[in-house]
């Protein structure tokens, strides 16, 4: 326990988990089997339990005012801001640890990791993976939700090439604050605001896939319900992966503005603010934990300790 009364994780090496492409999981792979079982277990927990499915969704957003005890934990999602990417990376991390703990409790493997949905890879990969559609019954398949566009749940194409365009990877710098550049990661802002411009990655494919999958009244269309769709987490896992692809591209090209960081020779004060800003979550043992942006800039080291199956550059040689 720290001086501020907040539990902090020990800095010990952890095995690196591999987040894999959901459409390339080999036959017989149990990743989605265990994901479904864990969600079933989380759905049985009351909303007041930080490990419950609905509590995890409320961290992102919820209708109405958060109860006093949850004021620092609910309605925390960061959008239209340069915290969009780091906050969602933290959100995924704690969610993944909670699901993984459920998997272990259900006698599953210890190395469960969240898969990602790379809808931009091909026409086939843009379809909703079968396990999230069939069986099409919420009582028997926790990966299925009826609150999606019907074409998506029918296994038909529903994403346009514009929805899944990833030319956002060609944008620089990371952060913007005026009309000169759309930027990759978002405008410099303090706490979240759903209005206004987001970064290139947030706008597309992030926003477009949300509304394309949710349609008129589906879960994914609204921030308060989006995390209730199990595909939300795979979608954001892909957004997080694209951030990593972008960082690797900047390194390959020798660009200093890969993230707001000490790479730049002349640092505006806001850059330090970005790296030291922290957000609160609960871990898999229900302990509250603060995490700073600086802690989530390298996915391969603790506390994150994961990497993606594929972070290859889709635009090699193109600056």
């Amino acid at each position, binding site marked *: 326990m720290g001086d501020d009364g907040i539990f902090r994780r020990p800095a010990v090496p952890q095995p690196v988990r591999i987040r894999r492409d959901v459409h390339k999981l080999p036959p017989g792979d149990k990743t989605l089997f265990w994901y479904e079982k864990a969600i079933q277990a989380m759905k049985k927990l009351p909303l007041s339990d930080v490990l419950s499915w609905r509590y995890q969704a409320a961290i992102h*957003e919820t209708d109405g005012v958060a109860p006093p005890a949850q004021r620092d934990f609910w309605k925390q999602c960061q*959008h239209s801001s340069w915290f969009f990417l780091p906050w969602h990376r933290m959100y995924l991390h704690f969610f993944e640890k909670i699901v993984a703990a459920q998997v272990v409790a259900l006698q599953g493997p210890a190395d469960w990791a969240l898969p990602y949905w790379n809808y931009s890879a091909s026409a086939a990969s843009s379809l909703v993976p079968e396990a999230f559609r069939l069986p099409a019954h919420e009582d028997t398949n926790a990966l299925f939700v009826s609150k999606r566009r019907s074409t998506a749940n029918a296994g038909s194409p529903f994403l*346009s090439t*514009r*929805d899944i*365009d990833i030319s956002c990877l060609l944008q*620089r*710098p*990371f*952060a*913007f*604050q*005026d*009309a*000169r*550049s*759309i930027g990759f990661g978002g405008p410099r802002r303090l706490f979240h*605001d*759903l*209005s*206004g*411009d*987001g970064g290139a990655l*947030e*706008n*597309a494919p*992030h*926003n*477009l896939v*949300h*509304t*394309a999958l*949710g*349609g*008129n*009244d589906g879960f994914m*269309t*609204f*921030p*308060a319900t989006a995390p209730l769709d199990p595909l939300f987490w795979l979608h954001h896992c892909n957004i997080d992966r694209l951030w990593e692809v972008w960082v690797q591209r900047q390194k390959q090209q020798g*660009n*200093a*503005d890969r993230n*707001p960081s000490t790479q*730049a*020779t*002349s*640092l*505006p004060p*806001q*850059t330090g603010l970005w790296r030291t800003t922290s957000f609160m979550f609960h871990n898999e043992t229900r302990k509250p934990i603060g995490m700073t942006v600086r802690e989530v800039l390298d996915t391969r080291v603790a506390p994150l300790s994961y990497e993606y199956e594929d972070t290859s550059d889709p635009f090699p040689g193109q600056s």
Partner: protein
Amino acid sequence: MTARPAYIQGILMVALTGMYFEGACVRAAMTIPSKERAMAASDQTDAGNQQSGLPDVPELIVSSDRPFLIGAESTRLTLEIHEPTGPARHKPLKDQELFLRIENYTCDKAAPSFAVFLNVPPGQNAQDRNDLYAGSMGTFGLREASSSQVSMAEQERT
């Protein structure tokens, strides 16, 4: 949103096309881009912006004169572009990088995403002219943001 027009001549025609969702509409305004905002930001450049080679002070060269509604059908606007006379006057317009901003947009129910096309000839379907596609407007969270903007405006009035 911000989009980069492939090219702009004397007249810019903007077509905004809803991808699906019937009945939803969005109220929006358009600028290319805001001079006031640009001036305010001109002393806050960072290493990234300096490296990008963008001019320090952009200039507003046109804006819509009133808010407009975007619905499921294609919405077309025509804007008359002026040659820059302010900070951007040192280069011909054709040699400059231009940004199209659709801003302050709101909705009161779930809205679709909108595709934005430039200079689609009259009588042609914008969706058939992918070569004129400029970008897409996402609307995730727009309904919630719109209600919070209304709420803030009401608080300011009281």
